[in-house]
């Protein structure tokens, strides 16, 4: 793990129309890390992800990927630079079958997972190749949404609440998968409500509240900060 930040976010502000959602978000993700954004509903976690991808109406501040500024770029240019988003709503396309969904994102660089590897990690996707994308179960759709961005060669993956609404056995499977892709050199920024799950995969955690990062912990320190965390998350 190198010390230079792969993703460096400074003073990030974002707006949806007239409403000001992010008020100066600062954090770093280093190469090869799994980092989570924790926080209550409405803290600005998803907006942070979308802002990095260029999918909000207006944003200000700085987002650097390996030193290159991303804030002036269009979403497709940011995607080409090597960031890929797996959105909270999964965005599986109803008009496309499983294979078409999987093959939709173009290859942007070398180093993505090849299809055999993806089918080893997600055997269900092979069995259901010809099914309509949205006919899959929630867990399978989540797998598909993650699998399709592993193929492209993007090295920084933004996973927005991948475990939301899924059965515990599927959550465990997603946990294994995240550890597996970390081993393969991917860097992950993860949004989670479920910090117990986050603790099983992440190196570091940032806590967000009211559109700002208000605290951070190393995963090793999580136990010592449980009281604070309960307080922040209201659990």
């Amino acid at each position, binding site marked *: 793990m190198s010390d230079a930040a792969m993703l460096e976010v400074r003073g990030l502000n974002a707006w949806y129309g007239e409403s000001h959602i992010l008020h100066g978000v600062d954090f770093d993700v280093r190469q090869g890390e799994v980092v989570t954004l924790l926080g209550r509903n409405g803290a600005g976690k998803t907006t942070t992800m979308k802002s990095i991808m260029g999918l909000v109406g207006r944003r200000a501040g700085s987002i650097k990927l390996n030193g290159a500024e991303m804030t002036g770029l269009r*979403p497709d240019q940011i*995607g080409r630079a090597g960031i890929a988003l797996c959105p909270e709503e999964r*965005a599986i396309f*109803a*008009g496309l079958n499983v294979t078409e969904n999987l093959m939709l994102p*173009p290859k*942007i660089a070398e180093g993505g997972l090849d299809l055999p590897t993806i089918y080893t990690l997600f055997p269900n996707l092979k069995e259901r190749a010809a099914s309509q994308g949205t006919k899959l179960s929630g867990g399978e759709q989540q797998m598909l949404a993650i699998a399709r961005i592993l193929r492209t060669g993007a090295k920084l993956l933004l996973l927005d609440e991948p475990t939301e609404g899924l059965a515990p056995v599927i959550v465990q499977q997603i946990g294994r998968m995240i550890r597996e892709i970390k081993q393969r050199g991917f860097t992950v920024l993860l949004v989670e409500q479920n910090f117990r799950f986050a603790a099983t995969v992440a190196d570091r955690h940032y806590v967000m509240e009211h559109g700002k990062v208000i605290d951070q912990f190393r995963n090793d320190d999580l136990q010592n900060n449980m009281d604070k965390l309960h307080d922040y998350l209201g659990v």
Partner: protein
Amino acid sequence: MFMIFGYPSALLFGQLLLGLINGAFYALLSLGLAIIFGMLNIVNFSHGALFMLGAFVAWGLLEFLGISYWWSLLLAPIVVGAFGVLLEKVFIARLYKLDHLYGLLLTFGLALVIEGLARNQFGSSGMPFAIPRQLQGATDLGFMFMPNYRGWVVAASAGMCLLVWLVIEKTSLGATLRAATENPAIVQSFGINVPRMITLTYAAGVALAAFAGVLAAPIYSVNPNMGASFIITVFAVVVIGGMGSIAGSIVTGFGLGIVEGLTKVFYPQGSSVVIFVVMVIVLLTRPAGLFGKGGH
């Protein structure tokens, strides 16, 4: 000659063929509208004017440059498609964040301008366009004589519709298009230049209209009103088929052409309104259209 349901077979088959020819144009035009609506969420009211423009480009290429009909089938869609790129970039692209109504008004206004300019330049009586030498004459099919050019129009339209359907439903480019229709933001985040794709989709849609215009040139005289007379019926076809449905617009286009042709045999007085009667019935029973997947 033999009789079917008490009607001479030649009359029946003749009207059926006329219906199929109208259907060929309905299908090509409503297919273009469906593609544009799916991607841009705009009802392209200038479609008829661009159909007319396609016929005029073919006429101009022949008249001034001596370029044949066959080359025009390729060149007119390219010229009109390029004009479509200009329209989308200069005008339509500014409206995506506004209500659909603005796109409708803008494209309707564009149609009036384009048709008005054409009328100003060429008058409204129209110019003849000769059937290409290779397709003159008629073929005896045994049960009727079929003018070769009309047979060609039906075949060319069906072939083009099939090609477009294959590209959209069976290729990776088509998959990207379908995905961008559902969720452009996410598709763009994958590294695909969606704004450019939208421009090219509009160009492709109006190129189809121009292709239909070239096919129509030898059948109807090339005149500034040829699009306007078609387009109202075509919008009814689109409503019946279901906005944005690719297969729906093709099947409905040909199907309603045939229905219209048969009505001319069995109840001639009703032939000019039958498509609108069908539209009313479909709207009452299946508001999303025969092939529609529910409202937007």
